[in-house]
C-alpha cells in the first residue's frame, strides 16, 4: 500500500486556499497580518508571495471593517475569505455579520447573495487566557442566514474550506488553535467535503458521543480507552453545525439508546443544548435508556494558569468518566 500523504491542519487549509485562489480569480484573502506574517497561526504563510498583495490583503486592526469588506465584495461578485485573528475578536464584527451578511438576502427578497467565508480560530489550551480563547460558535448557529462549519481533521479542513468558498452564503469557519499542528491524511488533488454532512467517525453500540472540533479526537481517544473495558462508543462529528444534518445523530441514538454531547464551548447556552433538544424531540426519545448529558466548558472565563485552563474544558479523562457513567447507569 502506498504511504498516505500527511499534512497538518494548517497546511491542509493553506493548500485548500491556494488551490481555490489559483482556480478562481474572485477568491481573495483579507485579514490582519495574513501577508508577510503569514497569519498569527501561519495558515496563510507563502500566499502573499504567490498571489500578491491585491489578493492577500493585510488590514488595519478593524474587525468590523474586515467583515464589511467581505460583505461588500461578496455582494458585488467576489468570493472573499476573511480571517479574524482570534475568534474572540469577532465580537467586534457581530453587527456586520448578523445584521448585514446573514440578513441581506432575506431582507432583499432573495435577490442578493453574500458568498463569503470568515475563518477564525477558537478554543483554549495555549495559555492565551480569557480574551483569546473563546468558543462562540453557538452564537452563529443561532443566526438564520449564516452557515457554521467546524472541521476537526486536516482532511475535513481542506475539503470543507473548498465547500465553504463554493457556497453562496456567508459561512463562519471555525478552526481550533490546538488542531493547527495536528497531522492527518490529505490528498493533494482538490476535493470538497460537502457542508451539512454529519460524519460517524467511529462506530459503537453503547453510547452516542456527538463531539465537535478538538473534542472529536479527544472522544476518539476516550473511545479507545473504554473499548478496553468493553464499552463501545459511537463517535459522531457534525462538522457543519448549521444547517445541522441531525439524521445520523438520531439514528445513532436509536441504536445506542444513550447520548453524550461534548464540546469545548461553555455548556450553558451552548451548541450542546441544540443537539440534546434535537434528540429529545425526536423519535430517538423512545429508545433512550439514560438521560442525555452534555460535557462542555465550565461556566467561567478561560483561566491563564495552565492547570486551571486544562480543567476548564473537557479532556480525554473527563470524557471517559462521563461516558462510563452513562453506560453503566451511574448518574
Amino acid at each position, binding site marked *: 500500500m502506498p504511504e498516505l500523504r500527511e499534512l497538518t491542519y494548517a497546511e491542509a487549509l493553506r493548500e485548500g486556499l491556494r488551490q481555490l485562489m489559483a482556480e478562481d480569480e474572485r477568491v*481573495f484573502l*483579507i485579514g490582519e497580518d495574513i501577508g508577510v506574517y503569514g497569519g498569527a497561526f501561519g495558515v496563510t504563510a507563502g500566499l502573499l508571495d504567490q498571489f500578491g498583495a*491585491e*489578493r492577500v*490583503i493585510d*488590514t*488595519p486592526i*478593524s474587525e*468590523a*471593517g474586515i*467583515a*464589511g*469588506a*467581505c*460583505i*461588500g*465584495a*461578496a*455582494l*458585488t*461578485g*467576489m468570493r*472573499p475569505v476573511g480571517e479574524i485573528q482570534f475568534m474572540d475578536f469577532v465580537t467586534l464584527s457581530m*453587527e*456586520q455579520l448578523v*445584521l*448585514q451578511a446573514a440578513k*441581506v*438576502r*432575506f*431582507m*432583499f*427578497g*432573495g*435577490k*442578493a*447573495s453574500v*458568498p463569503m467565508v470568515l475563518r477564525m480560530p477558537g478554543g483554549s489550551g495555549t495559555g492565551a487566557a480569557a480574551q483569546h480563547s473563546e468558543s462562540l460558535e453557538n452564537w452563529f448557529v443561532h443566526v*438564520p*442566514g449564516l*452557515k457554521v462549519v467546524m472541521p476537526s481533521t486536516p482532511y475535513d479542513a481542506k475539503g470543507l474550506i473548498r465547500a465553504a468558498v463554493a457556497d*453562496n*452564503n456567508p459561512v463562519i469557519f471555525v478552526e481550533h488553535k490546538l488542531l493547527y499542528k495536528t497531522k492527518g491524511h490529505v490528498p493533494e488533488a482538490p476535493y470538497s467535503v460537502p457542508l451539512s454532512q454529519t460524519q460517524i467517525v467511529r462506530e459503537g453500540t453503547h453510547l452516542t458521543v456527538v463531539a465537535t472540533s478538538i473534542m472529536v479526537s479527544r472522544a476518539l481517544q476516550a473511545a479507545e480507552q473504554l473499548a478496553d473495558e468493553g464499552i463501545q462508543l459511537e463517535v459522531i462529528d457534525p462538522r457543519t453545525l448549521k*444547517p445541522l444534518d441531525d439524521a445520523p445523530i438520531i439514528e445513532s441514538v436509536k441504536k445506542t439508546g444513550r447520548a453524550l454531547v461534548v464540546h469545548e464551548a461553555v455548556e450553558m447556552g451552548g451548541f450542546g443544548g441544540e443537539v440534546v433538544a434535537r434528540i429529545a424531540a425526536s423519535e430517538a426519545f423512545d429508545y433512550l435508556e439514560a438521560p442525555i448529558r452534555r460535557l462542555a466548558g465550565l461556566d467561567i472565563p478561560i483561566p491563564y494558569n495552565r492547570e486551571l485552563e486544562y480543567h476548564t474544558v473537557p479532556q480525554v479523562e473527563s470524557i471517559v468518566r462521563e461516558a462510563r457513567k452513562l453506560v453503566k447507569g451511574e448518574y
Partner: protein
Amino acid sequence: MMQLSQDLIQRYHDVIESLGPEALKEMLQAMHLIRAFEERAEQLYMLGKVHGTMHLSIGQEATAIGAANAMQDGDYLLNHHRGHGHCMAWGSDPNRMMAEFMGRETGYCRGRGGSMHIADVDSNNLGANGIVAGGIPIAVGVGLSIKMRRTNQVCLVIFGDGAANEGAFHEALNMASIWALPIVFLCENNQYAMSMPVEKAFNIENISQRAAAYGLPGITVDGNDPLAVYSAVSEAAARARRGEGASLVEAKTYRYKGHSKSDKQAYRSREEVRDWQDNRDPILRFANLLVLAGVITEAEAATMRDQAIATIDEAVEFSENSPEPSVADILDGVYA
C-alpha cells in the same frame, strides 16, 4: 416665490450648462416625486395601512437628487434608513417601492424588507439599511471589489450625521484611504440624530473636518441645493474614477418631519422647523432657480407637483392591487 439673486445664478452657470435643461427639469420633477412619495407614505401610515415605522426625508430631497445625478450607470449605491429619496433618485420604480412599503409581494424585497430595507440589486442599489452606519463598512468591500475587478465604477454611500459617530465610520474611512478605494462617502447632515443635535454630538464645526484624520479630502456643501451637492459629489466621483481614492462630502440639510412615526420633537422648536421650510426649502428654491434661469416656465413649475402626485396615486393603486406574500413561502430566500 422666493427671491434668488442673479448672482447666485451666475455661480451656477457652469453646472447648469453642463447638466442641460432636460436633466435639470428631471431633477426637479424627481424631487417632487420623492416628496409626494413620502407625503403619501405618511398618510398611509396614519390611515393604518402600513405597519412598522418609516423615516421621512421631506426637506432633504436636494441631497438625494444632487448626489444620484452625479453618479454614472453601473455605479453602486448604499444608503440608510432615511432612504426613500436616495432610492428614488437612483431610479427606483415608484410602484415597486410603494409595494415594498406596503409589504406586498410585488415590492422590491417581496414585502420582506419594508421601508428601511429597499434595495434594487439590478441597478446596483445595494440597499437602504436599518442600522446606523451599517452600510459604511460594506462600501469598503464594494470599493475593493471594483478595484480588483478593474472596472470603472464608483461606490456612493450615504449616511447621516449620527452615523459619523459610530466606530464603523472610522474603520471604513481609514481603510478606504489607505487603499485609495473608489468611494464617495456622503454624510447627509440633517442637524439631528433622532433627538441628538449635532452641536451636542460633535465638538467640531463640520463633520467633513473628519476627513483629514484619514488623509482624505473633505468638503461641506449646502445640502438643500441640488447643484451644490451635484458639484461636490461629481468632483469626488471623478477623483475616485481617476484612481485617486475616496472623499468625504458633507451635505447640510434639514428634516421637516419627526425622526420616525412616534416623535414628539421636544428637542427642537417649531420656529426652527418653520424657518427651514419657509426660507430654505430645496424644492421651492430649485424651482425658483430654474424659472429664473429660464429652464422652465412658472406654469411648468406649477404642474410638476400634480404630476408627481399622479404617479404616486398609481403606485398606491398598483400596491393595493398587489398580493401579500404567502405564508407558505415564509422560509424562502434565507439561503442562496
